[in-house]
């Protein structure tokens, strides 16, 4: 079995990360923004696991588990806010959240 070079994994992770980031800045629906955030975090997870296996260490996988926990916590808070928003504005359009200016 030929090993996949580390740089390929890192490039894959960067591409996934960019896809997620573009999603965060260009999506209108807040639900999709939260999903794009998940994509970004999971891209980082790919990078960590790749790096960990290249160094034959468990650190990368430990970090991935920490990231999973973070993602769960973040989505929990995010969905709570989403429900608040739906209740108040009857819509999930991010452009409604632009009252603060100056």
């Amino acid at each position: 079995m030929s090993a996949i070079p580390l740089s390929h994994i890192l490039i894959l992770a960067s591409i996934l990360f960019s896809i997620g980031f573009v999603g965060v800045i260009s999506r209108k629906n807040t639900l999709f923004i939260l999903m794009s955030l998940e994509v970004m975090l999971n891209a980082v997870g790919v990078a960590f696991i790749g790096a960990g296996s290249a160094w034959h260490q468990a650190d990368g996988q430990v970090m991935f588990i920490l990231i999973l926990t973070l993602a769960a916590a973040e989505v929990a808070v995010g969905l709570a806010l989403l429900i608040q928003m739906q209740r108040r504005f009857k819509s999930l359009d991010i452009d409604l959240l632009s009252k603060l200016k100056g």
Partner: protein
Amino acid sequence: MTLLMIHSISPLLIVAFGIVLSLLLIAWRRSQKLILAFTLTIFVCAMLASISLMMNLTDAMQVTILMKVDNYGNFAFILILAASLAVGLLSTAWLTHSVEVHDEFFILLQLVVLGAGILVMSDHFASLFLGFELLSIALVGMVGYSRDSQYSVESSFKYLILSATASSFMLLGIAFIYSQSGSLSFATDLLSSNEVSPVISLFHHAGVLLFLIGVAFKLSLAPFHFWTPDVYQGAPTSVTLLLATVSKVAMFVVLMKFWFSQPSLFIQPIVSNGNTLSTFNFMSIFAILSMLVGNTLALKQQNIKRLLAYSSIAHMGYLLIVLMVLSPQSVVLAWQSALFYLSAYVLATVSLFMVLQLTQNNSCNTELNVDDWQGLFWQKRSLAMLVIVAVLSLAGIPLTMGFIGKFYLLNVAFYAQQWWLIAALIIGSGIALVYYLGIIFALFNTSSIDQHNGNYRPLKLKPLVNASVVTLVAFGVALGLYPELLSQIFINF
């Protein structure tokens, strides 16, 4: 884990244990007075533990690979605890407005403090990440805490998305750094060894840059500052105070720990291959931009919270100067300057937000403008004095703490020969005088007193509140006149 190690992280353990106990306490009896008293007790206990630790600790101590307890981190934790005590006290004034029992607020507050405490003592990317997320997720909850307020959803959503984006950037940076260095500790310095291939150093540099971008988001440095004013304005006042002090202090201290543990980042070697310089230059660009953008945008602000948001951007820009050191010998001076400046900043910010909260309670108006403070001096001398001392200190007028802090920064910049930064610091402070003095002029303005009398009840302060106002004024004046009181502490570190 020896007993000594447990002793050296005792402040963190007290806070962590306090969170569990508070949850049990809520299960036993839901009372806001009880949980407030309990939270404040925990903070005071943790503060006493840190102070006793600071006296006994002579050298930096590694507690497992995750944490490194030193006196700089310890002092920062004391600052954080002091600021959160103020937050706890101020929030009671605001939370009594509605009928519910607000015990979650205090749990979240303790979680923020725990996260900040882990950050200032971390020496490893895993603990940095844990502290960072404890801090930011709990803060998202606090920013949107007052559900009924007009802006709560908007500001907490903005904060959530931006802090999640920032932490993904930071994590990708950490992953890149880890992929090249094979270790998650801060101290591994890959670039100092000579046999790095160009590809490795490319990914490593990308990693460091992404990490710094993530930190810059949280510190609201100039190109990444857009969330700051909106979140500051939309959050409840005491939470804004938390954002302005605790999260800034913790992030800055951890940034310094990371930066100074990698000599190749900041020491400009003459033989360097251009890349090393770029990280250094990036930080100076962030600093100069923050100083100029923050101060310029603050000029046209009327809302006090937004004004303070922009001024905090500028202050973080000033603080970045301490990262610009050229030799390991000046690291000690850099730490002293940073801690002094942070203390001055925290004291002034706490003072201003205290006045803001008190006047806000009085006028039942959540959107206070500078105009609403007009004639405050003729209504309530002690509050006006507090504002004056704090604003002068933020502006850096001589005989205040802020002046000494800026002097320290100038000192560091001179040693590092960063003339552009010095120029930006001076220009920024000059611009800042315009809006800081505007606040002071408003305090003395008599013209509008008559028309305000209608909706201004006379400001009546409880004796305890009055005492704390006077104490803050005394602190501000005393430390401005005798800065040695504070700097003596740092010299022994």
